[in-house]
């Protein structure tokens, strides 16, 4: 049977028995239950069209359609349950996989994703996103940070200082995410912390997405003079591995959670190893 769920003292994560995809997150301390569907999708990168010859490239994100295609409708999964950590391994395709992880005592869900090399034999540039879909009534609003300092409210198809005529429903709503992005309603907040700067958006109410990787075939004519087509060591494209940390809490207490956790991510402990025994040491 596919994985059903993992749990620690603070959180329970449930998976859809048919698809193997993440289905629900529960905060056991606060008795919050949020249906969350998470999957990986790809946008087809624009090569330019009749309206505008702008291609998607290093400077420009421009999908040729607002629809994102799921990499897989379901996953092959298996789970590992131990006292220290519980993990669900999800295989979306030959080039996309993820581990959903709960460590004992940790109040967040860790998603460790591995994406690439992105296939391009079909002649299509691809921009890969991880999307979380919930039933939160977000009223077109979502929140992104600026280098972990000021959190800015973003509104879909809206600019605070001028009347916007939106011509790019996806790209026109993407914003930089340096360390966190969140959506919330009156009561509940879903926060995603990143381990690197990424682009992010909420293209529909209750939805939140982050771009994790991209591989493009055309230069965007903005100066770089090359398509974003990194070869990697093995000349078949880059493989990237990163982590998203998910917090589910009340809207009031989420800031206390994500600020401390983001600090710990940004200034993570440094590991140094040495062969042999030696006395255990901890300065007083």
């Amino acid at each position: 049977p596919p994985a059903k769920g993992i749990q620690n003292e603070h959180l329970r994560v449930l998976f859809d028995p048919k698809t193997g995809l993440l289905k629900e997150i529960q905060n056991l301390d606060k008795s919050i239950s949020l249906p969350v569907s998470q999957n990986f999708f790809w946008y087809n990168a624009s090569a330019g069209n009749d309206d505008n010859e702008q291609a998607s490239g290093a400077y420009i994100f421009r999908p040729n359609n607002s629809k994102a295609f799921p990499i897989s409708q379901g996953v092959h999964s298996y789970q590992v349950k131990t006292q220290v950590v519980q993990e669900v391994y999800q295989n979306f395709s030959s080039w996309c996989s993820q581990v959903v992880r709960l460590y004992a005592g940790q109040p967040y869900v860790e998603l460790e994703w591995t994406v690439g090399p992105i296939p391009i034999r079909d002649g299509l540039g691809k921009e890969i996103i991880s999307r979380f879909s919930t039933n939160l009534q977000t009223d077109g609003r979502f929140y992104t940070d600026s280098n972990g300092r000021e959190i800015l409210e973003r509104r879909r198809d809206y600019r605070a200082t001028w009347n916007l005529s939106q011509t790019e429903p996806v790209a026109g709503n993407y914003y930089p995410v340096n360390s966190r992005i969140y959506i919330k309603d009156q009561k509940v907040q879903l926060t995603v912390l990143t381990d690197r700067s990424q682009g992010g958006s909420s293209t529909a109410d209750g939805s939140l997405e982050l771009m994790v990787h991209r591989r493009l075939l055309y230069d965007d004519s903005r100066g770089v003079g090359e398509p974003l087509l990194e070869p990697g060591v093995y000349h078949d494209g880059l493989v990237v591995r990163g982590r998203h940390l998910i917090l589910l809490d009340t809207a009031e207490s989420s800031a206390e959670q994500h600020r401390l956790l983001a600090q710990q991510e940004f200034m993570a402990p440094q590991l140094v190893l040495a062969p042999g025994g030696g006395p255990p040491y901890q300065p007083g």
Partner: protein
Amino acid sequence: NSSSYELRKAMGVAQHHDAVSGTAKQHVTNDYAKQLSVGWDACQVVISNALASIGGSKENFMFCTYLNISICPLTEAAHTFVVVVYNPLPRLVNQNIRLPVNGNHYSVTAPDGQAVLNEVIPVSSFTQKVRRDRGNAINELVFQASSPPVGYSSYTISKVPGRNQAHSKLLKRLYEPA
């Protein structure tokens, strides 16, 4: 003899908008990576010197930069090794440590001499595919380390001979869907 200047210089260069946003040509991107790598190599010496000075003994410190894909020649091969966890934050931090290993059973000793709960779990097929022909670890050792504010703690890890029954049970629990 080394200095953190090299890394400071590389970080200064990497403030350019091309480096921040990834809009450089590929050969420039390669150079950014090279400069950061050279800087980090120099800083490893600085950190080793600092730890030797504070700890009062000169150790052959090693750094494993591929831990995210379960590669570390020292932990994969050694029967006994020390993990030093340095915490730069001004508060106590609990960090989950994952180290690639080839044994099935390990003892982890905390700075206060207490045994630390740990688990050995298999390296996933995802990771094996990503690291390709690099790294041979079949397992990962997982435990939680605690580090004091702006300080460090060291954990001693030893391979324990014999078959680990818990590990055998764990392997049985791994399954694929139909």
